[in-house]
Each structure stands twice: as C-alpha cells, then as structure tokens.
C-alpha cells in the first residue's frame, strides 16, 4: 500500500454544554469525537459513514484544522501539525482543503462566485491578480462551469452548479488532500453521477487523496477504497469497501447497511431490514460499556459493562465488538 499522507491518532473533540441566561456556565461536555484513529494513504479514498450527529463533520473540521482538537494528534506527510499555527498552518491548509456539507451556506451570497473561488488564492497571496483570475477560470473549466459566469452571484446557479463552485474552490490551491463532507447529498441522481465522475477524474489526473463523508452508501461503495463506520464519536468498524459491505462484523454496520434504501420497490418490500430499537443515545452522557449496547440486536450481558476496543486484523479489517457477527 502507498505511503500514509494524513493520519489522526486518538482525536478527541468536545463541545461545552452551557446553561444559564446571563451567566452561562458549562454544565457538561458533548464528546462529539472520542479517540478516533485514521490513516489516509496517498491517492486513496477513505469514507466515513455513520448516523447523523455521530461526529463526522466535527472530525472533518478537526482534520483540516478548522477547529482545535482537545486531545490526540494529526500528522501530515509524517509531520505533526496538531499545534501548528501562523504561516506553517497556512501551508498545511493549502494542501488539505475541504468541500462543505452545505454548498449554499458556504458561499457568501453577496460575493460574485469568481471572487469566492479566488478567495483562497487571496488569503494565501498566490500570484498576481491576473494570474489568480486565470487560475479561477481554469478551475471553473475543470469542474464543468462556464468561465464566462465568473461575475455571477451564487443564487443564479443550480444546486449542482453550486456544488461545482465548492469543488472549484477546494481544488484552486492545488491541494493533495480534499475532505469532502456530503459532496453529493444535495444533488439529484443525474448531477450526482456527474460529480462522482468529476471527483474520480480529479483524483486520477491530480493524484488527490480523499476523505469522503456521505450518507448515501451506494455512493460510498462506488468512491471509497476503505470505509470507517462511526457510532457516537467512535470508529466501530473499518476495512476495505468489500470487507465492510459484504462481510460486516459489527452489528451496527450491518444494521446501517440493511437500512439503505433500495431503488427497487419489490426488493425493498421483501428484503430483511434490521430495525434498530431504542433512541440514538445522547453524546452528552453516552451509555456505559459498549456504546451501541442499548440498541444492539445481538446484545449480551457483558456488553453493558465492557467497552470493546477497535481491534484490527492482519487483513486491515477491524471492529469494536465483543460478539462480532460471523464473516
């Protein structure tokens, strides 16, 4: 396997829970991301999947250093960048960029899109104004936007076009890694296919490595070389796409895969679906023992006491479950 390009070790990120109207005090902490390890290899696509609120976006923002992490470390090309600041942090941010979950909210509505896409170049003072404009127009062409639309405003574009603007913005700095948070979930299938093809083309042509966060498990299957499944801030299973999809060992992964909608009404009605019992527990006070135990269909007595750790087999397939499913 190729060299690791981005690694995270024990990354933990929490939010304060505040109460009080005038004097806000911290009454608890939401541990949104709790000790996540991750390795992204050069030229590969790693997907992160899991229920809403399990901490995917928070982890992504931590990885690209858009927010600080409470514990753990992040290395990029073998160098620890966890505590970097100033110019060296900027260098890192040029090479590791992000496509945001909500393309509409991440564009300033009053800014012409050319300006928006150029912003990263301005921030990093790259090139002369003329060169910057040329770079933006090249990026627009690259992602299938008409460069003549440089002076238009975001509301004049469709959802798919806005997503392309977000991608153009992410590739303008010629990064090596792009973290894509739900790059296609707002798009209809035909545009989704265009963006998936575009991401694959860019990866091939520019040698990019991707971390992809997506709810659509068919898109993930298509894009990802490896998959990490998160539950309540932790990784519960990881492995190659084929391992996780065809031989899930963690009961949560299996439930997740069985819930995916199937575009075939007869099959959708006849297939066996594992319906998870109980509510998604609050990350404010996660269950003791295995965090999944209150909803686990194969729960055993010891699960409420013992917290299983992620154990990775020689073939790279790993799971955090004391009673894993048969392969």
């Amino acid at each position, binding site marked *: 396997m190729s060299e690791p390009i981005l690694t995270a070790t024990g990354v933990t990120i929490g939010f304060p829970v505040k109460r009080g109207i005038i004097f806000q005090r911290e009454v608890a902490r939401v541990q949104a991301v709790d000790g996540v390890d991750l390795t992204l290899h050069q030229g590969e696509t790693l997907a992160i999947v899991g229920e809403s609120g399990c901490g995917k976006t928070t982890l992504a923002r931590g990885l690209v250093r858009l927010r600080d992490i409470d514990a753990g470390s992040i290395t990029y090309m073998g160098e620890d960048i966890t505590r970097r600041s100033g110019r060296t942090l900027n260098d890192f941010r040029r090479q590791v960029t992000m496509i945001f979950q909500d393309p*509409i909210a991440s564009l300033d509505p009053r800014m012409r899109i050319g300006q928006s896409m150029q912003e990263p170049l301005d921030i990093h003072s790259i090139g002369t104004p003329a060169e910057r404009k040329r770079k933006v127009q090249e990026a627009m062409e690259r992602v299938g936007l008409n460069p003549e639309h440089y002076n238009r405003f975001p509301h004049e574009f*469709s959802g798919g076009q806005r997503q392309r603007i977000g991608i153009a913005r992410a590739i303008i700095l010629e990064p090596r890694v792009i973290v894509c948070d739900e790059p296609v979930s707002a798009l209809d*299938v035909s545009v*989704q*296919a265009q963006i998936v*093809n575009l991401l694959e083309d860019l990866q091939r042509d520019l040698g990019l490595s991707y971390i992809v966060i997506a709810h659509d498990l068919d*898109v993930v299957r298509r894009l990802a070389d490896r998959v990490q499944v998160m539950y309540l801030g932790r990784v519960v299973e990881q492995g190659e796409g084929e391992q996780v999809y065809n031989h899930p060992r963690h009961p949560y992964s299996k439930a997740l895969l069985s819930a995916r909608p*199937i575009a075939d*009404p007869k099959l959708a009605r006849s297939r066996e679906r594992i319906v998870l019992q109980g509510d998604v527990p609050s990350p*404010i006070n996660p269950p003791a023992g295995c965090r999944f135990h209150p909803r686990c269909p194969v729960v055993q007595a010891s699960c409420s006491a013992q917290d299983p750790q992620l154990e990775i087999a020689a073939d790279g397939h790993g799971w955090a479950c004391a009673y894993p499913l048969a392969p």
Partner: protein
Amino acid sequence: MALLTVENLRTTFRTDDGPVCAVDGVSLSVAAGQVLGIVGESGCGKSAMSLSIMGLLPTSATVEGSIQLGEHQLVGMPKNELRTLRGSEVAMIFQDPMASLNPVMTIGWQLEEAVRLHQKVSRREARTLAVAGLAAVGIPSPEDRLKTYPHELSGGMRQRVMIAMALLNRPRLLIADEPTTALDVTTQAQILALMRDLRSEVDAAIVLITHDLGVVAEVCDEVAVMYAGRIVERAPVDELFARPQHPYTWGLLASLPGRNRAGERLHQIAGSPPSLMNPPVGCRFAPRCAMAMDVCRADPAPVLAAVAGSDTVVACHLDAATRAREGARFASDEESA
C-alpha cells in the same frame, strides 16, 4: 376520493430578464392515505410547485389553474385564510431546515409556538406535545434538547426538529420537500417509517419530493417524474421501476451508482436541463434524448397519454413497442432477468 387535486397548474416568476414559467401545466392528485413521489432534476420546478400549493410564493410569482384541497380551492384564496390552513390542515417540511428555523430562539420555544398558533392549549400542554414530537422523530433526551438553539444541532437533527414541527398539528396534507436528503440511512429509515405511520394513522395524504429513487421505491404509492416544469411520466411505483416508459426516467435509473459497474464511469444524462425562460419547442427533453426524432423537436409537444395495460401515463412520441423494448433495459434487475 382525492384529498388534493391539482389541475393545469402554471406558476410563473417575474424576473428582470423576463417571465420564468417554473411549473407549466401540471396536473396530479393524491388521496388520503397515499404517498405521491415527485422526482426530477434540480430546477425542474418541484419546490415551485409545492410552494404554490402552500401559498408561500413571493409576490413576483403568479399561479394559474386549480388547486383543490378537500372543500377548499387554494388558488385565489385570501392570504389570511391560507395562513389558517397552513400548519393545521397542510404542513410542509422544507428543503433547507436552517431557513425555516429561527436561529435566535430555542427549538422548544419554536415548537411550543407552532402548537399554540393552531391549538388552544396551555403552555404546559404545548410543552408536553413538543417533547412528544421530538421523541417521535427520534431526538435523544428531548427534554434537554428543548433548551438548545438550532446551530447546536447536527444537520440531521435540525431536519428532524423541522419534521416534528410539521407533524405537531396532525396535518391532513403533508408536503415534504427533500425531507431526508440530509439524513443518514438509519434516521432516514425512521423518518420514512414515521411518514408511513402518519399516512395510515391519521390518513394523511403526503407529497414527497425527492431525488432519491431509493426513497421513492421505499415509501411511495405513485410517482410523478418532472422535467423542465412538466410531468413526463406518472405511474404506480411498481410500474415505474418494472416498466419505465420515458427516456428521461431511463436516464435517471441508469445514473444510479448501484447500477453501474466499478471502474466504469457512471452513466450521465448528456447535456443540461433547458432554461425555463425560453424552453425548447416540442418535447423539452429532445435536446438530451438519444431517441429523439424530428417530430420531437417540433410543436405540439407530446402530451400525457395512457400506456395500454397499465395505470401509467407518459408524454413521449415514441411508439409503444419501442418504449417497451428500450425501457426493459432500465427495469429493476428482477424484472429484466
């Protein structure tokens, strides 16, 4: 009996560059206890259609045609009467939850207000309903969450709060615009189950707008495929997947990532949707259609016509035999095998 009957709906936006006809002669109906799915590309007029039904369009828009909801005719209904219907008899779940939640109010306050606007209940009862509503959409520790602000929730949780709000007053008609797009599959499965319950328990009619054909297959009874402001195919859900009739529907089915082999590029529908400012004459899909003939590029445009031996209607000039033969290539595997 249909609860909602839309006939020849035409919604036009006035813009600086001229009128944009976002919905161009759409007819459909939904009965109580039924789920109608609307699918179609971004910009084809799905939201404009639902906002027309809700009476929530900006003043730059005009609506023609007929929208009959039970005993009420909604086209031309005075604004204050429409407002009373909204939130009680008709509710809508919006595409963008942030746009319809107030960022400076707690979600508890917003839910309680929504109840008190339409039901004569005390603050305490409103609060109880709000907690039950949040619990019903699977929000953990609902009591605690009442005190949170929208920005403190994940994208998916915000969407669930929106759904809870729409369901608080047990509407007869629910219009859900991409309600599960931001959700993970397990939460999505819960929300879809919630919609199925709503349909059967309170006999609500549901219009579900989505671009996810998986969601359509899971919950819809009937499906309307929209293209550039018009319905091009309408069919019972099993029919649509077993015997898709319109070339645009074929394109949508072929783009599904699950239907494409690894290593091959995903199928894309060539070209892009037409401008609604001056749409092509004849069939609006013709510029992108691999099957287009001369007749397709000229007026009059094909109109919806019944497909023999089914409850499907399709607007396409291709003859029945060609549609059956070509369509079979895009049918669900089970059928084509």
